[in-house]
Every structure is written in structure tokens, then in C-alpha cells.
């Protein structure tokens, strides 16, 4: 199935999404990598707000290439970064801020999948490295927060139109496309060992 969704995305829409579905999103979304996740959770722990309400929002694991333009910013290139680094924070992050969609590449682990099931969120893959393609969906940079973390780690607030195609690879029903692929790879391992003349396990 293919869906075009507007941010904020209600939980009822998120729950419809299944692994293998294609999603395009429109609205305001944020980037967040290791440092932004860490800071957001630290603020939350202290009972302080973060700069933007992420309820029903889209969080993009991305550190863009940016250029100053007309007193603001232009996004030059903005593909996803490896999401597994955020596995350290993602489950708590989802519980604290209740985003609907996490976009990255490479998939995430069982703790994140469990949080997605519990709180109603999905993980989507955008093709890694397809940075110019991703940047084309950014209509405007609304702002940047935590700039002192450096350009890649700052939280960029982006207005996007039909950002996608995003492939749902972890849904809110406990299914993970990544886990399915890993299972196939594991099944192939003995065959590959024997191809290479490896006897030990």
C-alpha cells in the first residue's frame, strides 16, 4: 500500500501501516542524531521542554549538508544516517516525545520495535546516501536548534512536501523487515561456509 500522510500523524493512521508499505509525508519534521537524542532525553529528565512538540511528528536520523542563503539556510544534501547508533536512546525517546515515524537507514533493534508497538510508531528506511533526492523534498528550513552541537548533530526543523518514498520496515504490530532479512541471511550462512570450505562454526 502507498500512503500520503500529513504531519502530525494520528495514531490511528500509524497503526494502519504495515511493513512493506510506502509512505510520503508532508509537513514539519526534525532531524536528530546521537547528540540531539541525548540532549532531548536529558532535558526531559529535568522536566524541561524541547524546542518543538514531536507528538505525531517525524524524526529523521540525518545530518544534512547546509548552505547559508538569504539570511536563512538551504538544505543541499540530506540522506539518512545509520539508525542503529540511536538504538541507545530511541525507546525512551519514543516514550517521552511520542513521534509517529522515525526515518533512517539500516533498521533498529528489538527495544525500539517494542516501544513502537507499545506507543504506536513505525520505522521507515529511506535509501542511504540518496541525499540530493531527499533534499529535493525540503521546501524550507524553518529553523535550527542546538546549533552548538555542530551542523550534523544540530536539530534542523524542516518543512517537507511528499518526503519519500519511505519504506515501512518496522511497524507497530511487532513486525520487522530487517529481522526477516537477518533470518534469511542466517539461514544462508551454513551454505556460504561450505562454499568457502569453512568447517568450524
Amino acid at each position, binding site marked *: 500500500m502507498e500512503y500520503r500522510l500529513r504531519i502530525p500523524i494520528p495514531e490511528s493512521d500509524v497503526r494502519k501501516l504495515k511493513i512493506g508499505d510506502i509512505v510520503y509525508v508532508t509537513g514539519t519534521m526534525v532531524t536528530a542524531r546521537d547528540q540531539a537524542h541525548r540532549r532531548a532525553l536529558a532535558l526531559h529528565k529535568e522536566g524541561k521542554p524541547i524546542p518543538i512538540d514531536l507528538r505525531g511528528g517525524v524524526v529523521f536520523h540525518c545530518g544534512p549538508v547546509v548552505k547559508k542563503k538569504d539570511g536563512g539556510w538551504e538544505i543541499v544534501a540530506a540522506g539518512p544516517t*545509520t539508525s542503529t547508533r540511536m538504538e541507545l536512546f530511541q525507546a525512551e525517546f519514543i516514550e517521552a516525545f511520542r513521534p509517529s515515524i522515525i526515518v533512517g537507514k539500516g533498521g533498529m533493534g528489538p527495544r525500539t520495535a517494542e516501544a513502537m508497538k507499545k506507543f504506536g510508531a513505525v520505522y521507515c*528506511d529511506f535509501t542511504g546516501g540518496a*541525499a*540530493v533526492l531527499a533534499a529535493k523534498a525540503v521546501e524550507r528550513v524553518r529553523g535550527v536548534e542546538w546549533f552548538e552541537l555542530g551542523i550534523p548533530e544540530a536539530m534542523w526543523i524542516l518543512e517537507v512536501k511528499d518526503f519519500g*518514498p519511505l519504506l515501512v520496515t518496522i511497524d507497530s504490530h511487532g513486525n520487522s523487515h530487517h529481522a526477516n*532479512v537477518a533470518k534469511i541471511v542466517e539461514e544462508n*550462512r551454513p551454505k556460504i561456509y561450505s562454499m568457502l570450505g569453512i568447517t568450524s562454526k
Partner: protein
Amino acid sequence: MVDAKLVEDLAVDLLRLAAIELPSDVKGALEKARGQESSDIAKANLDAILENIRLAESMKRPVCQDTGLIVFFLNVGHDFGSVKGVPEAIAKGTKRATEEIPLRPNAVHPITRKNSGDNTGAYVPILNWSYVEGDYLEITAFPKGGGSENMTFFSMVKPGEGIAGIKKFVIDSVISSGGQPCPPTIIGVGIGGTADLAMKLAKKCLLRPIGQRHSDPEIAKLEEELLKAINSTGIGPMGLGGNITSLDVHVDYAHCHTASLPVAVNTQCWAARRATARIYKDGSVEILSHRR
């Protein structure tokens, strides 16, 4: 003595070429991979990659937002003359390239994580020097992405495990990397030497064009065998499943201690960026990696 401004300008040009336009062997291999995939997901990902490559070239933008930690390989010809001032000129070129192209500033202090803002810092840009016959200075810009560099592995394999031990370590490394290094990847394998040399050989292998085999037929055979095995895993483009996990495997070796068998694996993403040029003694410049 080499003209420092010429080196600085060339560093900017090479970083721009590398960031925006992939070498033709890489583009060709990705197009070939598209034809070898059967699943919709694998085909869609390779289509996005190929479309992105075209867009980057036409819009003159970096092909990937991770424009890498800045690495250069320099081959100094014995008859070229002094290379005094070259490191400073390359650092200046790196700062300018960051601003002018632009590149993403990626160099941070390893502990404080403070970003220097200009892609330079302690030992960065990283310069790898070699000495060769000739009257030129050959410079390769090799910006290295973090996602693929994180998929680096090293093992002191027991010599008694022999070639099977080497193969197992390589295939286990690739399987544990899964989709994280942005497959289809290129796998560099360094065998022998000391730990540091094995790692350096693994990285240097990644400079070799796709499809070019090692001159030693036994090593060439190992490369082909490993590639076939990796592409039987089912990891596929972006780790989302498919037939093509790696575009190539490059292996190099050094003699090692009789008690040791070091094996290093260094991974390159599909955005396998490199750009090479020569400055000759007479001051003329020739771009080798891209047609101009």
C-alpha cells in the same frame, strides 16, 4: 619547489570532483547491479541510488550528505622534488572546499565531540604518503563516510586456521555489518604485516577500480570467491534483501611474523568517492580519475 597555491586549488578541485561525481567504474557497477536484482525493494533502492547520482551531477551537489572524514593519498615521485608546504596547502584546500562546495563539517574532537567546523583538526586531513618512480606528485582525495568506516574489523587469526580462518573472518564481518554500511559495498581486506599495516592495506585496496583483480592469481581467486560468497548472503542493497551486497572485494597482503596472521576488513559504501590527479615537475596538472 611545488607551488603551494597550485596544490591548494587542486585539493579543492579533487574534493569537489570526489564529492559530486562518482568514478565511472562505480557508476557502471551500480547500473549492472540494478540489472541483477529481482525484488521490488532492491530494485527501488538501486533506482533511487542511480537517480540520486544523476541529480548530484546535474545540480552539482554532494552525492551523499556524509561528505566524509577527509583523507588523501599522496604518491611522491623520486624526481618530483621537494614537497615542502604540501600538508599546509592541502589543509587550506580542505577548509576552502568545506565552505565552497559545501561539504558537511565532520571532524570533531574524539572525546569532547566539539566540531572544528572546517573538516580539519588533529592529524586531519589524514595524509597517507608513498614514494614512487616518476617526476610527479599524485594526489588522491578519498573522503571516507562514517557509516562505512564504522564497519571496520580486525582479527589476529591463528595461523593454524589458515585460509579458511581468513575467509570466515571476512564473511562474518560482512554479515554482522548487514545494511549499516550502505550496501552494495566494496570490501577491502588486508592480510598479514603488522596490525597497522593490515588495516592500511585494507583501506588502500578500496582505491582500486571495481573489477580490477590483484596481480597475484591466488589473491585474485580469493577476491572472486569472497565476492561470490558475500553476494550469496541475501543482505542486498541497503540490507533490505537482494542479490547484490557488494560490488567488489579487493585483497592485498604483506608478509607477516611466523606467529601471526593479521586480517583487517575495511568497508566502502556504494558512494565510493575518489578523485586523483598528478602535478608534474613542470607545473602541469592532469586529472586521472574523471574525464574533463
